């Protein structure tokens, strides 16, 4: 198919292009309690083509682009028509000129993964075993689960010589834990691993069982007011993703973000911990074929890197790094127990926790929290937190204990001071 696409490009005299090839195989298992409810398998092959057209408007050099899908079963005539239409569309995309990354043909990078040691079906069986191994209690159990094991091969080719590919595996999914006494409650949890990480999944399920059992004890909402809020697990990564997203060139170029290298991004008069964040490369190449490496994002609260695609990097006059989606933070200054001093509201789970990259607002409805009045700890449920990181970032505390998720490696917990709570 690649050759047929190249031929269609040649036929239409199109010299600037980017082609993505994506081959996916998956095995999917769907469970209700300990019963397999549905099994699925997928084998698909996708091609995406972006064509670029250079032109001038009032003496300014422009580069328009348009992206289309090319499908198996298309005739050569259909492909040629689609390529021609895309090129025509690109002439209406009035974006200032930028350069595409250059490169050469590289060997396919096979990311090392224990998921590759057998068939996808075998790996799915082993992950299913891990999923249910801690599910041994009577009143707290896995209500339902979905498990996907996938093998993906990505190939990226462009007209500047880039011709790279990589193969990766993933075991991912979600499960819901239910506790039926003293009240019927549930907790949703998702997971994603690049290896056959059975122990990590077992630990996650065990923790979810414990949280859900605790939630079943919670009956009342916290009172409305301001609290020192502690968050843990994936919510720490969601908070920190604000900095990752604000440092993207696509946010800075249109001035949605005012980040600049050398800025103290937490502002002046920081009383809490200074941020140290590393950009983590989770794939060898960006979706444009730019080689990706780990890079410092923020050091002691100072922005070190703006990351982004070739277009926005060119506009800002910086090195194109590719778009990053994963970050790592070092351990914090206090143990998790030390963080739980004085009065606090430790929110273990939300119905959904949202971080707005534009406004800095974070909010979520509380599914389970532990409310400490300085002496007693009471499980509470209901109400919501509504805070702003632009204010909270001056007084952050991170735990010494660490966690590792697919897109976040860092402290297990974070403490935010004086956050508004709409309670009972």
């Amino acid at each position: 198919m690649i050759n047929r696409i190249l031929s269609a490009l040649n036929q239409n005299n199109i010299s600037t292009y980017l082609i993505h090839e994506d081959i996916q195989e998956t095995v999917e298992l769907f469970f209700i309690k300990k019963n397999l409810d549905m099994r699925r398998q997928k084998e698909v092959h996708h091609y995406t083509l972006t064509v670029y057209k250079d032109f001038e408007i009032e003496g300014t050099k422009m580069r328009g682009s348009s992206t289309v899908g090319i499908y198996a079963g298309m005739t050569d005539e259909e492909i040629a028509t689609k390529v021609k239409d895309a090129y025509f569309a690109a002439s209406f995309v009035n974006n200032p000129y930028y350069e595409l990354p250059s490169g050469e043909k590289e060997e396919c990078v096979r990311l090392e993964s224990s998921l590759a040691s057998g068939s996808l079906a075998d790996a799915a069986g082993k992950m299913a075993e891990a999923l249910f191994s801690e599910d041994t209690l009577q009143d707290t159990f896995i209500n339902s689960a979905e498990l996907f094991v996938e093998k993906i091969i990505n190939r990226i080719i462009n007209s500047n010589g880039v011709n790279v590919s990589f193969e990766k595996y993933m075991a991912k999914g979600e499960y819901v834990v239910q506790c039926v006494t003293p009240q019927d409650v549930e907790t949703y949890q998702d997971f994603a691993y690049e290896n056959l990480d059975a122990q990590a999944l077992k630990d996650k399920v065990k923790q979810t069982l414990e949280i859900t059992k605790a939630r079943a004890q919670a009956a009342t909402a916290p009172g409305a007011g301001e609290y020192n809020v502690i968050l843990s697990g994936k919510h720490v990564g969601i908070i920190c993703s604000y900095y990752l997203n604000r440092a993207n060139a696509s946010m800075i170029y249109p001035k949605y973000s005012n980040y600049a290298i050398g800025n103290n991004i937490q502002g002046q008069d920081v009383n809490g911990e200074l941020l140290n964040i590393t950009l983590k490369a989770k794939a060898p190449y960006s979706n444009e074929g730019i080689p990706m490496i780990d890079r410092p994002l923020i050091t002691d609260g100072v922005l070190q890197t703006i990351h982004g695609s070739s277009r926005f990097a060119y506009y800002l006059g910086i090195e194109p790094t590719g778009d990053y989606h994963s970050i790592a933070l070092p351990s914090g200054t206090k143990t998790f127990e030390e963080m739980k001093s004085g009065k606090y509201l430790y929110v273990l789970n939300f119905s959904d926790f949202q971080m707005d990259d534009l406004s800095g607002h974070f909010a979520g409805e509380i599914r389970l929290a532990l409310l400490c009045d300085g002496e007693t700890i009471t499980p509470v449920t209901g109400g919501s937190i509504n805070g702003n990181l632009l204010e909270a970032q001056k007084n952050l505390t991170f735990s010494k204990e660490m966690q590792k998720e697919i897109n976040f490696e860092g402290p297990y917990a974070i403490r935010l001071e004086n956050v508004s709570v709409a309670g009972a």
Partner: protein
Amino acid sequence: MKVKSSQYLDQVKPLLKELLNSLLEEYSYASILATDSKGKNYAVSKSGTVIKEDSLLSGRGFVAKVYDGNSYGEYSFNEITEGSIEDILYNIKFSLIPLKESLPKGITESGYGELLDEPDVFKESTEYIQNPEELGDEKIVTFITKLSEEGKQFDDKILDCIVRCNYQQYHKLFLSRNKDMEQNVLWTTGSIIVMASRGEEIKHYFKGYSNLGGTELLEEMKDDIQSVAQNTLELLESEPIKPGEYDCICTPEVTGMIVHEAFGHGVEMDMFVKKRALAEKYIGEYVASTLITMHDGAAVREAATYFFDDEGVPAQDTVIIEKGILKRGISDSQSAMYLNTKPTGNGRRESYERKAYTRMTNTYFEAGKDKLEDMIASIQYGFLLENASSGMEDPKNWGIQCMVNIAREIKEGKLTGKIYSPIVMTGYVPDLLKSISMISDTMELSGGGFCGKGYKEWVKVSDGGPYIKARIRLG
């Protein structure tokens, strides 16, 4: 004009029938869903101009579903030729079906009966006034560029005006022993987002548009730029609300978010199968004010209207709540079989690559008899809630998490002009629904967004209803 059939699906239909017949020799039930769809996105903002096919909404592919005498398996693929049929049959028989043998000790297989396969042969298409492909990329981009420029020039404080237009034209075939169904559907959506900055904080106001049709929708967007920009500027003066419970009036889009997120997800009956939905215990009970009647389905022409679902069940109009009483939920075929109910035509897939789940379509409350001005006049102190931003379902406990952009203060029956933002709505769904005391005599649906099941499986939906007056906890 009616949306035409897919030439591609017409071309591969004989091959699909050959595959189906071979599957039916091996399995007592087999079906194939074939799709050919094209979704395109146009956007103009300070970031630049975008014209691209939407990878989520575009593609050609197939999913074969088979019954092995006890349970179901599905195989998704996107290439079929005379020569590949044997490979597909082989993969289903020797790879998909044996997957149940790789299960660990203690995990068994759910037992299901065979799906009903009632005869149904039809071909249906939706209508449009102006097909986006015929209008062309140039005219669409020129139109939204003009709107974007107008928004940006409205005031010096405006940071950006993002204008988008998206459409999907999809064609589906459903083939089984007794069914041969075809549908051809076109929907179009648009949006205007105006942004302004207050220091590091960016405030924005959003307006969405949708139809079951084509780019005739663009005309609706012309007149709103100034009001969206004005609302954004007002947000710069907003402040956080004092948490508490208030008398509120919800605009139709906020009503829609309550209908969809707070209640609709809870009546998706695959959740009944898993015992994850409180609603199952409340069938026949009052769950809302007697003023409330709630529908899901094809009784309205909106972006989520179709003729049959992804399991070959014809679309219906399902009355979920009738005068406050919960009557029934919505279901996919497998859930309905498990629960011994009739499927309601709500088995939907994100694409041929994904499993079918019970999903909403067009979900809404019926209009009432009140005038909006009377509703506002009835409030001593409260808020008009507008600009729904996001929500999350909680079928198990009927907890509400919905976020809105603006709460406009009402004092002694009048809007004061003061606004609060952002707003989190919380509480217990039946408490909110039972507190509804007034309903406007007009209703609106909007289908600009997509709905996820949890955090994935995105499908096009619309929701809405009238203005409602209710008691709501805000924070």
